């Protein structure tokens, strides 16, 4: 099957309108590094490679606009050269999916709503996407938002396209709020007897004024640390003088802990960002978002039910649980979701074979009224289900 490669928004709109007329779906292609995320979609590949390059970067204004097809690594290098970064710390899915790290485009990053450990403090990708240009599933060239930090003019459609896996529109240009990198960072590592104690330490730290920008719990043996005991990991960022003080304050508040210095701290959080504890382990992987106090309850429910839990760890004070489970045709979805039915929250299957992802609800099923509304929202952009058909829901 040939790959469509429009060279302008007008050509992209034409291609999408033609697909609407013919009733043939399209698969959106950036770097192709995330095709194993979501349900398998069907359709003619449509490359967004033409939409590349930085059109605006004003470090003093904390704003960057670039084509959606621009390699993410290129942008991160540019920001780094100016002492800035994406504060939402987007995960690099490469290691989890068995691919080389450092691939992917801005469009893919937006479409998967990629956020990392700092989300608890600094917000997720959805909080930093100021605006975008796109061609909708109906073939209309549309823009939303802007290039300024504060904007309530019209609906905030940025929130919708962040994490929509391309099911609403083909993004052509994205605008981000970018933030200064802190002068330094350090991590306080507190070994505990048990996961409950580690998670309690995270919650205690989250209630202090230390402004932790990373609150994860690593079960014993989990990579990259492979400690003999469970541990709470608390990252502090800022001016050196402030980091030193806050580490000491937290150590006093939590009754101990070992300080990990900047360079090792950076490596550690990069590994956690990319889900190293589950990425290294073969098996089916889930990413579960719950209230921070419910992360452990979920793991205990799975253990109680005899689920083959191969690896796991907690981020976001316990509210983000990464799981690796032994292979099963249903990826243990019923078991996991039965647990969530009482706790609240949702689970996303992030690594499984194509066959399993086609069979299992990769994204959390919704109650009837919400499911119907969600579908109407999808159809308000893409009435004929042309874009990424089947990627998020089997029915569209």
């Amino acid at each position, binding site marked *: 099957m040939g790959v469509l490669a429009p060279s302008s928004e007008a050509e992209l709109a034409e291609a999408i309108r033609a697909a609407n007329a013919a009733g043939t779906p399209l698969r959106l292609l950036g770097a192709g590094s995330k095709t194993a995320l979501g349900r398998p979609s069907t359709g003619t590949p449509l490359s967004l490679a033409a939409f590349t390059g930085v059109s605006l970067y004003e470090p003093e204004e904390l704003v960057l606009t670039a084509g959606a097809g621009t390699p993410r690594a290129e942008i991160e290098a540019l920001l780094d050269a100016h002492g800035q970064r994406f504060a939402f710390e987007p995960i690099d899915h490469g290691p989890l999916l068995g691919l080389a790290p450092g691939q992917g485009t801005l469009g893919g990053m937006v479409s998967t709503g990629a956020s990392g450990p700092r989300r608890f403090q600094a917000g997720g990708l959805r*909080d930093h996407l100021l605006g975008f240009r796109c061609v909708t599933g109906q073939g209309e060239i549309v823009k939303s938002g802007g290039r300024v*930090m504060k904007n309530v003019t*019209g609906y905030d459609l940025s929130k919708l396209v962040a994490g929509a896996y391309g099911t609403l529109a083909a993004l052509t240009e994205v605008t981000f709020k970018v933030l200064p990198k802190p002068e330094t960072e350090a991590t306080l590592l507190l070994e505990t007897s048990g996961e409950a104690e580690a998670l309690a330490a995270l919650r205690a730290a989250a209630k202090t004024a230390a*402004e932790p920008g990373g609150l994860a719990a690593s079960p014993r043996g989990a990579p990259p640390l492979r400690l003999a005991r469970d541990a709470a990991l608390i990252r502090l960022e800022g001016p050196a003088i402030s980091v030193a*003080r806050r580490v000491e304050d937290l150590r006093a508040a939590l009754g101990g802990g070992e300080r990990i210095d900047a360079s090792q701290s950076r490596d550690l959080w990069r590994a956690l960002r990319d889900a190293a504890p589950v990425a290294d382990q073969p098996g089916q992987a889930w990413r579960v978002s719950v209230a921070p106090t419910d992360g452990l309850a979920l793991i205990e429910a799975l253990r109680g039910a005899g689920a083959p839990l191969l690896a796991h760890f907690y981020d976001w004070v316990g509210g983000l649980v990464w799981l690796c489970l032994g292979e099963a045709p249903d990826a243990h979805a019923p078991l996991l979701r039965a647990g969530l039915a009482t706790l609240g929250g949702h689970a996303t299957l992030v690594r499984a074979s194509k066959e399993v992802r086609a069979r299992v609800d990769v994204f959390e099923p919704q109650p009837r009224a919400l499911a119907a*509304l969600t579908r*109407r929202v999808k159809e308000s952009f893409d009435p004929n289900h042309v874009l990424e058909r089947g990627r998020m829901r089997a029915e569209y």
Partner: protein
Amino acid sequence: MALSMPPPEAAILSRRDEIVARLKKILPAENVIADEIARRAYDCDAFTMYRALPLVVALPETVAQVSAILELAQDLSVKVVPRGAGTSLSGGSMPLEDGVLLGMSKFNRIIEIDYENRCARVQPGVTNLSITRAVEGRGFYYAPDPSSQIACSIGGNVGENAGGVHCLKYGLTTNNLLGLEVVLMGGEVIRLGGKHLDSEFYDLMGLMTGSEGLLGVITEATVRILPKPSVARALLLGFASVEDGARAVGAIIARGVIPAGLEMMDRATIGATERFQPCGYPQDAEALVIVELDGAQAEVDHLTGVCEEIARAQGATSAKISTSEAERLQFWAGRKNAFPAVACIGPDYLCMDGTIPRRRLPEVLLGMEALAKKYGLRVANVFHAGDGNLHPLILYDASIDGDSERAERLGADILRLCVAVGGVLTGEHGVGVEKRDLMGEMFSQADLEQQMRVKCAFDPQGRLNPGKVFPTLHRCAEFGMMRVERGEPRFPELPRF
């Protein structure tokens, strides 16, 4: 440029008694306000330029009642305008003569405070400030702090995506929200988010935030609460020109400092606030910058030095650093009272809310000055300098014939200027009716139609808060897959207002 609203539907007006009677079957009689004098109290929000007497005011107390009212409204095809505390500056809750005004003021309970998960579950009528009041005893607060925080409600904050003076570091409402319960037109109740961080599918909670009451009625919100910083300190910096002040703001951010607050006021506002609420602002300054730094003591000490040094290097003519919490609050007192202070010299004012790329500030101020001269009006400026959100306050006298219209025309020109330099019409006050007819300055017809299609996904009959945000009225069926050749005006038969 008189505002035109959708004409009241005679068929609805003639059924008023029936609608009131049906509402009284859903609500206790005292929660249905049908009497004209009592309804008069609801005839506008804080955008007082335009008023309308609502058909009837309904004050539900339970989710079931809200659901029943929205089901009734759908059945009878009656318009509904949701209203929180009525503090909208853009007319977001301006009533319709043929619409039910749905007042959410009785939803005033804090349902749950969950310190372990750092969140509070509240009803929409709870005021912004009362959340902080409820949690401050344990050292927490709710970050977004619009100037009206003593009165404005969380439901309205979500509807407008309210900001405040701490947005640059702590974000707007949308960045501090975890969950919503929403009743849709027709009465269905949905829950979005919860106490967890990520959306499970499309981020409909993010979409609802700032949707100005056009998509659904909020009946509960879960908001994040944050531990209060150990120290907060404010710097009061005077500058000989707005350009100097703007340059200092840019230099602070360029140094990698993100202050908790970064505000600027021009000479007109400095003078007005000093008369209204004396708080020691330098009267010789052309521009006043307030920098607030918060965090650990060591960090605040360090950054205070950095900011003071930058300010001196950029030619600050005065610099005061707060030495106590009382002094810090005093520095803010003038800024927080800037609107009422300006009202005293107005006697009336129209508050604009454009956001611009920060470095364009000097030219925008000059442009505004020229425009103000052209219209023969005065403008005082309050500026959220850190995030580029500008509040020009246009002074006029409503008792002078034609002054209101001139103020409105000047406001529109100022917003056009903001858009022309890469900015937007509204940073935190919302479009409402006030900026509705300017949407075309920023958005193409295709942009607006996509937004209206989203509206149709929530409210296919277009009965929830119509006449707000979008400059043209439409029927959802028109947004199907039909396509019109380029260049042809779409739906020329539709009323434009």
